[in-house]
């Protein structure tokens, strides 16, 4: 590991998120403190309702905490208004969703450069070429999403997330809609992005096989961080999950 990994790309400090009031109160996040190191591939796991999606949404600036702080780099998200959050998402954060990840009216290349175009930033051509070649999309660039396979679409989404060289990339069940072979392919691409391109990825998943691609797995239950595994294997992850479930 290089020394960059000790620097945090993002983090949550005493983060709580409460839905509803009084009797119907639900603590989606309960005093969570967690750091995501630069250049690391982290997976967040946990059963349904454990708060893993909420944590990711709050970390990404899509949702606001009830209390506590979220930092992207050294920026405190609570201090930002909608406009600033928007440009933060555009410049510092990348997204990969489960499905319907792309704008159907835009070509693959246009989808990849979308965040850059939105910010009026000229893409770094060298980086862009690297990303496109890494994702093996060179001969698909002018296609519309409807002309691409599910795996290709998801590779475009990964490329889009990488294109602006963000501080951190959040992936929400990126392989949830894919068959296992294509899913493995996407995860390999994401892994490459971290190891070869020195990107930081945080992935929410419930699939132990997917989590095994990560450098580190954080386990959530009832809105709390309950466990953590470094350099996991799928068996190890499955084992921890079983323990959480019981």
């Amino acid at each position, binding site marked *: 590991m290089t020394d960059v990994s000790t620097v945090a790309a993002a983090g949550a400090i005493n983060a709580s998120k409460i839905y509803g009031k009084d009797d119907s109160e639900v603590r989606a996040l309960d005093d969570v403190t967690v750091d995501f190191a630069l250049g690391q591939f982290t997976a967040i796991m946990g059963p349904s309702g454990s708060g893993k999606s909420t944590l990711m949404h709050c970390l990404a600036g899509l949702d606001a905490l009830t209390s506590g702080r979220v930092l992207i780099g050294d920026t405190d998200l609570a201090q930002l208004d909608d406009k600033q959050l928007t440009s933060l*998402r555009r410049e510092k954060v990348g997204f990969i969703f489960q499905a319907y*990840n792309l704008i*159907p009216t835009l070509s693959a290349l246009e989808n990849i450069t979308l965040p850059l175009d939105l910010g009026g930033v000229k893409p770094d051509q060298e980086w862009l070429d690297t990303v496109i070649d890494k994702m093996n999309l060179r001969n698909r660039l002018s296609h519309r999403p409807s002309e691409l396979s599910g795996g290709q679409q998801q590779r475009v989404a990964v490329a889009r997330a990488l294109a602006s060289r963000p501080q951190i990339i959040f992936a929400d069940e990126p392989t949830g809609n894919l068959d296992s072979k294509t899913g493995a392919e996407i995860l390999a691409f994401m892994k490459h992005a971290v190891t070869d391109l020195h990107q930081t990825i945080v992935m929410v998943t419930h699939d132990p096989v997917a989590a095994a691609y990560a450098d580190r797995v954080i386990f959530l239950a009832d809105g709390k961080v309950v466990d953590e595994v470094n350099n996991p294997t799928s068996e190890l992850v499955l084992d921890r999950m079983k323990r959480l479930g019981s």
Partner: protein
Amino acid sequence: MMPSPVVRLTLRGVLARKFRILLTILAVVSGVAFVSGAFILTDSVKGAINNLFVELRGAVDLEIRTKIAFGDSARAERDPVDVSLMKDIAALDGVRLVEANLLRQATIIKPDGEPLKTSGPAFGISWTGPDGLDGRTLLEGVVPTKSGEVAIDKSSAKRAGYVLGDKVTLVGPIGKGEFTLVGLTGTGSTSGGGGASVCAFDPVTANEFLGADDKADSIYVGITPDAARSDVQKAIEGVLPSGYEVITGEQSAKETAGAINEIIDIFGKVLLGFAAISLFVSAFLIFNTFAIIVSQRLRELALLRAVGASTRQIHQMIIGEGLVVGIVATGLGLVGGLGVAKGITFAFNAAGAAFPAADLLISSRTIILSVAIGIGVTLAAAIVPALRAGRIPPVAAMRPELGFSALQRSKRLVVGVVTLITGITLFSIGLFVQPGGTVGTLGGSAIGAVLLFLGVASLSTTVAAPASRVISRILPFPLRPMTNSVPGRLASRNAQRTPRRTASTASALMVGLALVSTVSVVAGSVKKSFTDQLKASVTADFFVTNLSFQGLPVAFGERLAELPELGSVSPFRATVALINGEEKQIGAVKPEIGDLVDIDIQKGSINSLTDGDILLYKDPARDLNVDVGDTIDVTWQNGKTSTLTVGGIYADSSVAGNWLIGLDTLAEVSSAPPVDFFIGAKIADGVSIADARAAMDKVAADFPSAEVQDQAEFQKSQEDQLNQLLSIVYGLLIFAIFIAILGIANTMALSVFERTREFGLLRAVGMSRRHLKRSVRWEAIIVSVFGATLGIVVGIPLGIAVAIALPDSFVTATVVPINTIVTILIASVVVGIFAAIFPARRAAKLDILDAIATQ
């Protein structure tokens, strides 16, 4: 009856889509409101006018007047009756009261010296007070009984700023007079004269001031309570000289009201025409909404099919939704019709039309027609979407990408082209062949235009995508094409995404703007032709016209002719006569007309007018096969006949009309009080325009209703009149354009709804609310500019066709007004911005997480 699950699903369907259906309802409501408003307005105004005349005829049981030989009874120029007849009539058994009915022009001069402007005519009448036969009421003061006294209708007195006791200057047919205002009159329920100003004098003063020369328009007779009217009528007929007739008071009221009702009916038909245009445009909106809603419900409908709903039931469901929309909208539309009727009355009254105050009448015909039209149009527009919905394969519930089997492109092209060609053919036949007179012309060209619009709307689907691409490349012109930025690129792609939707939304706007383009071409051509004619065939330096349509007192023209500053002066009077069995408009002028208008005399001489000859245009001369020196038999409206010698044949009828006689000839054959419609004058040699003008203005000071204009002013005032008419037409077309704007807003709102997830994604990857709004707005602009372009492309040729079809005496040149086209295009951008306000706001407000979670 529909089976109950279908009914339940239908109602649920409507309720679940309240907001999406709301705008559709609004479109139908405005169409129906316009239709019912037109009916309500005409019914109410006609009712009020009939009442007014029944009230005005008050206690008149019988009316004695001179007979006419032909023509329309109410508008005929009758010879006046001799007042000496009254003595003989009064002596008859059963006759209670006899009065002279005298009605002439009399203008009220306001305290500041200006004439009081009225929307209707300015009358002076003979009046014996509320106890007499005339139904006028005395609201304040006393009845005028002697020379120097006048009673004026209360609303005119108020508008002029006079109160009882004031000295009032009036101008009658033979000159000015000073009167004391002693009474304020009203008619029936109102304090006015239905837009007219009415000055009432006692019979002796009226005879004198109104220059009646012991003649009256007719004689009113009231009978004693115990007398039978038919007996009295027979007795009167016994003593009447030949050429006279006696009619009942009811018939008289009916005839007079009928003439006005005809005008109101025309007005009502014009309104209905515009209502039809609005409805046509709303049909596009309804169609579009249903089509979009059906495609958005694809999964739901497929699921229904999968669990056993038949194609028929799906049809019933969608048609049923249309029915619900139609019923609700028609109900609201009828209520809206009351508002429209009130609104139009208000707008026209504000412009000075003075509709009589009337209770709004909703007749059963209004209700039946509104219901038929409102529900009919809605159902017709829902049929195609319903049929499409029925074609959804059940398997689409699981695999939505299977979707619809849309009408094939090639098939649609064929249908569109056939419709378009049929439309153009019908339109041309209606316009140029003109089968079956006015009805055939209007009907043929209207149906043709509808088909033409439908054809273009259908074909526009094919060009929608490329057109959107081109528009987005050149807008916002010329600094930076919108496709250079992400919001612009998205707007452009979204407009191209569903060409069918873009096309039908744009087509709604096309209809309104095509008509605006057509009207502007026709109006531009009329203006140009008028100016050309004025330059080519009019040599007069001055024109005198009347502010109202009553014509000018002849004394004015006579005094102008005496001015040394003027060379040639001729009035233009008009009458009708029967020539060769047909009713013809005849002009009566002085030979000096030759110096004022170039009628291009081919044979004979204008001076023959003074010998009692008739001049005619070359076409009727050819048709009648007459030449100079031949004679023509003429029957005048009062029954007199003349044999006139043809004194000349001319080749330019643009100002003079087809037939001209001398003033003396007219005076010999008709004793109806003459009025001048306009007077032309030419400056004497060596006199400056300013001097001539000053001399004319001096005379005009005694005739305040006369307006003296030089060529430029005359041209401008005619153009102003045309512009006023145009603004009314444009004002009525605004309705249709407004509905089209609703349509764009509706489509955009539905699209925003459909793209919720996409917008969420865009926001997540860093698109600002501002950019999102901009992308929705620009899409709306693309659609509306597309619609405007279609409108111009369709409307201009239509306008040129109409201009060519109009008779040469009216339009000789064809003008395409570039500034109007530019205005329409700029306005369409504004329309797009306006239509996008609500949808754009909605798009920007979407919660990112919710949006992403949407399927």
